[in-house]
């Protein structure tokens, strides 16, 4: 029997023990390195979405309260000489929609913002050619409202009919760059929090070419859509609803929660499945 005996309170471990510990440590070291490197390497790639944290941008446009708070911004003339617009949905600070901050601005400036030309400062978030903006209470004072000038033209709308699409309900604020990942199971609680906080839920759809599109979910019956989608956020769903093109965005009018159905994630990734979505092209 080996007569060495280990006691931890002694200043030095017996030689045999010390040698053994060294061997163990030398085995553990590569395991630690490899595990760390492998886990880090195999993580899903993060999206290129961007949140301009700390950078304020001044945007001039017409504010619309409905269907979701957004700013319609004149983007110059298109090739036919028609004025083109981009719409920038607004969100509040943290996990809040824009309604609260807009109300504060309206109280501060003692006027309604709806259909008015405003100059807002905020932080931009963008992905896949779409932009949204965060407005926080620090920027209330700098808001400028052009008195009395309402929007000259209504936003162009076009009924695209009932469609069945497969994708994932996201909160655009996180998905557009505040969080990475801003989708899927790991981010689910946060997405629910954001949507319950008033950030408009969107349906993210994509096709096998990797093109993405985002449909803004709205209720066609007056129910609180943010609350109604709580159980379907951040998981694969199939959703049947009337699609309406609204300027450069597409709205999805959900009539009944029965039209949202959880599906297996395999259904999203099966390459030969029906067109899950079209890129921006097919909503024209």
């Amino acid at each position, binding site marked *: *029997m080996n007569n060495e*005996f*280990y*006691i*931890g*309170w*002694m*200043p*030095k*471990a017996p030689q*045999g*023990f*010390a040698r*053994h*510990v060294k061997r*163990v*440590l030398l085995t*553990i*070291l590569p395991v*630690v*390195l490899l*595990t*760390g*490197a*492998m*886990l*880090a*390497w*195999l*993580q*899903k*790639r*993060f*999206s*290129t979405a961007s949140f301009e944290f700390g950078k304020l941008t001044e945007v001039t446009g017409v504010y619309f309260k409905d269907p979701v708070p957004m700013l319609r911004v004149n983007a110059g003339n298109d090739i036919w000489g028609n004025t083109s617009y981009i719409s920038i949905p607004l969100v509040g*600070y*943290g*996990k*809040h929609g824009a309604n609260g901050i807009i109300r504060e601005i309206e109280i501060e400036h003692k006027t309604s913002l709806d259909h008015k030309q405003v100059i807002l400062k905020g932080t931009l978030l963008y992905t896949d050619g779409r932009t949204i903006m965060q407005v926080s209470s620090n920027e209330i004072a700098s808001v400028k409202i052009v008195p009395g000038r309402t929007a000259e033209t209504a936003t162009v709308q076009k009924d695209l009919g009932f469609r069945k699409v497969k994708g994932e309900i996201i909160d655009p604020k996180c998905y557009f760059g505040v*969080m*990475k*990942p801003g989708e*899927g*199971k*790991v*981010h*689910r*609680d*946060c997405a*629910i*929090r*954001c949507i*319950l*906080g*008033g950030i408009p839920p969107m349906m993210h759809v994509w096709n096998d070419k990797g093109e993405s599109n985002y449909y803004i979910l709205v209720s066609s019956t007056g129910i609180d859509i943010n609350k109604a989608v*709580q*159980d379907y956020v951040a*998981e694969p769903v199939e959703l049947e609803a009337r699609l309406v093109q609204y300027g450069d965005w597409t709205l999805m009018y959900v009539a009944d929660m029965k039209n949202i159905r*959880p599906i297996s994630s395999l259904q999203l990734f099966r390459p030969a499945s029906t067109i899950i979505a079209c890129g921006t092209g097919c909503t024209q």
Partner: protein
Amino acid sequence: MGVSYQAIGWNRQKKQYDWLIFGFCCIYLSTFILVTAIFNPEYTFETVLIRSTSTLALLILHVILCIGPLSRINRKFLSLLYNRRHLGVTMFVLAATHGIFSIIHFHALSNVNPLVSLFTSNVNYNSAGGFPFQALGFFALVIFFLMAITSHDFWLHNLSPKTWKTLHMFVYGAYFLVLMHVMLGAIQYERHPAFVLLIALGAAAVLTLHLVAGTREVKKDNSLFDPAVNGFVSVCDVNEIEDNRAKIFCVNSERIAVYRFGDTLYAIHNVCKHQGGPLGEGKIIDGCITCPWHGYQYLPNNGQSPPPFKERVSTYDVRIEGNRVWLNPSPFPEGSERPGTVISQPSN
């Protein structure tokens, strides 16, 4: 005895142990962060912090759970067991960083309290794929917290070793919660099979080591003795016990250590009062039976820790007839003086 009874400070071994833990943590964290930054440059700081701390905590948890059975299989691992609680506290600090940061990241700045949000945002408690996995992590963290704050021996004495041990057995429950936390959380998101494989590998290692160490002990415990004669059972040959060492016998489901100290045999209960370490695997040092796990000491002739310590274990009677050692498995009250039995002839 030449031992003085100072409180045990951070001796050289402890310091080395802590530096090693610290070094390994730094290596892991920097590897994880660096590899993420290089291969996944769109990363955000929050996510890399949440993920590097969580995965390291889980890795350390595996080491913690494996050291126990490993040191039963090979005694040389005892040197890693001795300061295992330092690993435990480190693991807790990492898991708490991950958990608290996750709560802030995913639940703060919202319209409800973050802790309320933790349990009420995702309420799919009856679905497997949709299950609110964060709640599982929360309960695991509570267990680790209780274990970390009671890890000092002060609590061991205050709670009684039995309660303490029970509390610390919850580590297995917490391990299970963490596995489910990961399986129902990150694994539902990350699609690469290596993640599931790693989890399975880790769990298999923990399970196998426990089974191997367990079956060995059960085998030892089940060795049969001839029926008792006048209360004594014949256990072994005198020569089988080395000087200053013991052999352990499990008679009537009690483990008893029979020690040889010079030319005398003594028998005491095998279970250390500290954390139940196997006294029979210890050694007599400075005249005291010394527990192999953390070095608690007991006098062979009465099972008492030398003053000022107050631990006491049961003692037993032993007898020698011819070359056979006979042991009486009825215990004397803890700390009872027993004369032992003198080996009359030189045994070799």
